[in-house]
């Protein structure tokens, strides 16, 4: 039973970290209807940025974080303006191909700029696990969970309370009607990429610390797909719940199935779940239902 609790708690904590990456993806999809295959690579890029800045030793962590966030916001703006904006109105498939291309460009760029070897991203967090009621909890997971929860709450408030948050949701609903009330649709697009950049910065710091920084870090982006499919592509709440479910399922699968099959279950079980969910609820658990008045 203790083993089960252990798996559950750690699964949920990891799940929140998935949610953090997924939120960036959802933000972009929600506002601009672009499926961004490069979200994992943005995370990787942010992690590299953090590792390099910390490695130089010029700045302490508290100074690196705002610089990193600003840099990622700038990167988001540049990507939107340079690559995505000319594609407004083009078929979905072209946009998807472009984001896939972008993913590989970012990987190549990171390797050229900062060499391919794995770097450390040290955070001032205790390494020895806490033991709570016989359950081992790694401190970085707690930090990650707190960061994730705080960012998710901040995003939630932003979307329901702020002028630009409401504008972003309005644009997601009806772009032309948004224009008639004076919302600058292009600015909203740029803004959603910028915010996705911030989410990537937060994800990059945490995942970079957990896994070490190299181009393989971009693979966390692949886990985003079962998360967002489970939760619904355009729901922040869905991203959180989807993240928790994926974290939980893979942790439990790894704990109970790995001994029989020799490992690796956690890499594919989320996708099995994703396929099953798609059979039952094609728009995910929280995806926006198409409102149809009859």
């Amino acid at each position, binding site marked *: 039973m203790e083993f089960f609790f252990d798996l559950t708690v750690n699964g949920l904590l990891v799940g929140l970290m998935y949610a953090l990456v997924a939120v960036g993806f959802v933000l972009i999809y929600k506002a601009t209807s672009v499926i961004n295959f490069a979200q994992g690579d943005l995370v990787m890029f942010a992690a590299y940025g953090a590792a390099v800045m910390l490695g130089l030793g010029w700045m302490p962590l508290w100074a690196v974080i705002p610089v990193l966030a600003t840099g990622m916001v700038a990167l988001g703006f540049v990507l939107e303006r340079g690559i995505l904006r000319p594609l407004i109105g083009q078929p979905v498939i072209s946009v998807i191909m472009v984001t896939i291309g972008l993913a590989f460009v970012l990987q190549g760029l990171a390797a050229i700029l900062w060499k391919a070897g794995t770097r450390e991203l040290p955070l001032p967090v205790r390494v020895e696990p806490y033991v709570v009621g016989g359950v081992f909890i790694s401190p970085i997971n707690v930090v990650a969970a707190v960061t994730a929860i705080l960012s998710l709450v901040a995003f939630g408030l932003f979307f329901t309370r702020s002028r630009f948050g*409401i504008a972003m949701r*309005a644009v997601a609903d009806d772009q032309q009607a*948004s*224009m008639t009330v*004076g919302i600058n649709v292009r600015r909203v697009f740029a803004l959603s990429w910028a915010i996705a950049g911030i989410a990537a910065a937060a994800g990059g710091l945490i995942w970079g610390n957990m896994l070490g920084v190299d181009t393989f870090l971009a693979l966390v982006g692949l886990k985003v797909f079962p998360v967002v499919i489970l939760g619904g592509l355009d729901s922040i709440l869905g991203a959180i719940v989807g993240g928790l479910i994926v974290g939980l399922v893979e942790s439990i699968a790894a704990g109970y199935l790995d001994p029989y099959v020799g490992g690796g279950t956690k890499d594919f079980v989320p996708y099995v779940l994703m396929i099953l969910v798609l059979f039952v609820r094609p728009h995910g658990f929280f995806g*926006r239902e198409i*409102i149809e008045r009859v």
Partner: protein
Amino acid sequence: MLRLNNVEVVYDRSILVLRGVSVEVPEGTIVTLLGSNGAGKSTTLKAIAGILGPERGEVTTGSIELKGRDGWVRIDHRLPEEIVRMGVVLVMEGRRVFEHLTAEENLLAGAHTRRDLGAVRRDLDLVYQYFPRLAERRRTRAGYLSGGEQQMLAIGRGLMSQPRVMLLDEPSLGLAPMLVEEIFEIVKRLNQTEGVTILLVEQNAAMALTIAEHGSIMENGRIVLDGAADTLQNNEDIKEFYLGLSEVGARKSYRDVKHYRRRKRWLS
């Protein structure tokens, strides 16, 4: 307040939709644009609001001017948000509320161009005064409102930008006759009490001519007839084609209508 001078609109660089439309909307009045489907009424409004871009349309010749504090300013070829800031707002055909936002969020989205939160709050109350039903349903997602409520929400959302000119595109579309009357009464009241100048596009010509001072009839991208609303109401052709009236008691044969010749006379 607003005038269009010989405006031409071309879609996709090849389809001429407006062939030189001139309309004048004097300050504080209601002017209505009538005409059948595809006459170019909606396109005219979209051209004024500057939102032809997503439909690959473009104003190629002519000018659209708005009277500002210091004289007339051209507003064609401006960004839609600039036009809203200058006080011209379009309430699109088919209601087009933000379905996944609550009624109140819809209204707040309508005030996007404004910064003075206190005034926005006051206007929110004003809209709720005009549409008490929206106040009751302020927390409901707009997609679940009834058709009439959605139309009210769309007009209310337009009001939230503090417009001097409101462009209304078929507010009666798909609504029950009683609701249509209610909406038109409110439009009239907005015009009289709030002093909003209104350019109203309608298919329901009878209704539109009762509240408007002035009317223009469009056909094939041109204005074919215009005049004071009461003159138009008594015009034989209008009665026949748009109001569905003909001489009482007279037997009617469709052979006598002579659509073609009558229409042709207008266009010449």
